């Protein structure tokens, strides 16, 4: 495949893609934190106390 077949993004498209990527990253990180804290909130600290 030659370089002519590739889509070259404009600066505006690159900036928009970066903005979307950052938002998705932050949203996923927030979800992880929310589910972690909510699990402790629902079940109490005892959920961390388990035999290995």
């Amino acid at each position, binding site marked *: 495949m030659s370089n002519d077949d590739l*889509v070259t993004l404009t600066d505006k498209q690159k900036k928009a893609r970066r903005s979307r990527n950052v*938002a998705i990253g932050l949203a996923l990180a927030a979800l992880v934190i929310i589910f972690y804290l909510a699990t402790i909130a629902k079940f109490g600290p005892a959920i961390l106390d388990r035999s290995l």
Partner: protein
Amino acid sequence: MALVHNRFEEQTIRMSEATAGDFFALLKPRVMSLVVFTAFVGMVAAPVSINPFLAVVAILAIAIGAGASGALNMWYDADIDAVMTRTVNRPVPSGKVTPHEALTFGLVLSVLSVMTLGVLVNWLSAALLAFTIFFYAVIYTMWLKRWTPQNIVIGGAAGALPPMIGWAAVTGSVSLESVVLFLITFLWTPPHFWALALFKSEDYARAGIPMMPNVAGEASTRRQIFAYSLLLAPVGVAPWLLGYTTIGYGVVSLALGIGFVWYAWKVLRMPDSDRVMKPAKALFGYSLLYLFVIFAAYLADSVIERVFALGGA
């Protein structure tokens, strides 16, 4: 191989220029803020409380669910949004976000918000949120909006449900108190939107939406606005009459209700020749204030009552 190559050549590859802000605009942030506020009042008004973090999660899920239904609405209504001055700059008609992106975004957030609320809070509130999204996106947007002038009367149920969802998130049930909160927004919706439809009737006519002024005429709309204001005023006071709040809320809601009827009366008396429609614009502005203040009064009343209960304990 040649076939595959030709197919790619025929398609127009469009690289998205939509920023995170454009997707956020799909969530209808102003509507979302009203949903957050009324759902929060429903949660605080409930006689029991939940873990504060789970309360924040519930509010967040309700907000995202409401936003998702807004995105689905913008996906389906892109054709009529494009011909109305009020909505022409929305992300889909302005070309910033494609309809496919808006649909996917709305569906993903709908599922995510309902599942999060169900797993982390309770399934009754999740079911109510799912019903709200379905009612707004399918029953109102796809069916009622383009079919009947009663569109916003019935569709108003979707916007009125958030305090009930908030209540259900805390109590795990639905009670008369939460139904009264639902009724306040439900009865507020027709006079609010018909006041807007009166002075934006040309916009709605151009888009082919059967709003009340375009179908039944302005005089009939003005009468119906007044009739709904007469229903709304006593329902606004009902929480005090039923003993759910103190007289403080009763006085505020009564004054607000009298104000609403007064503004609706001015709309009723508006002559047919009035094209500036100042009374309709004034009612529209007042209706926004009415809903915010009446829910704020309910919130303040609930908080003060709780503080006094704690002090007396």
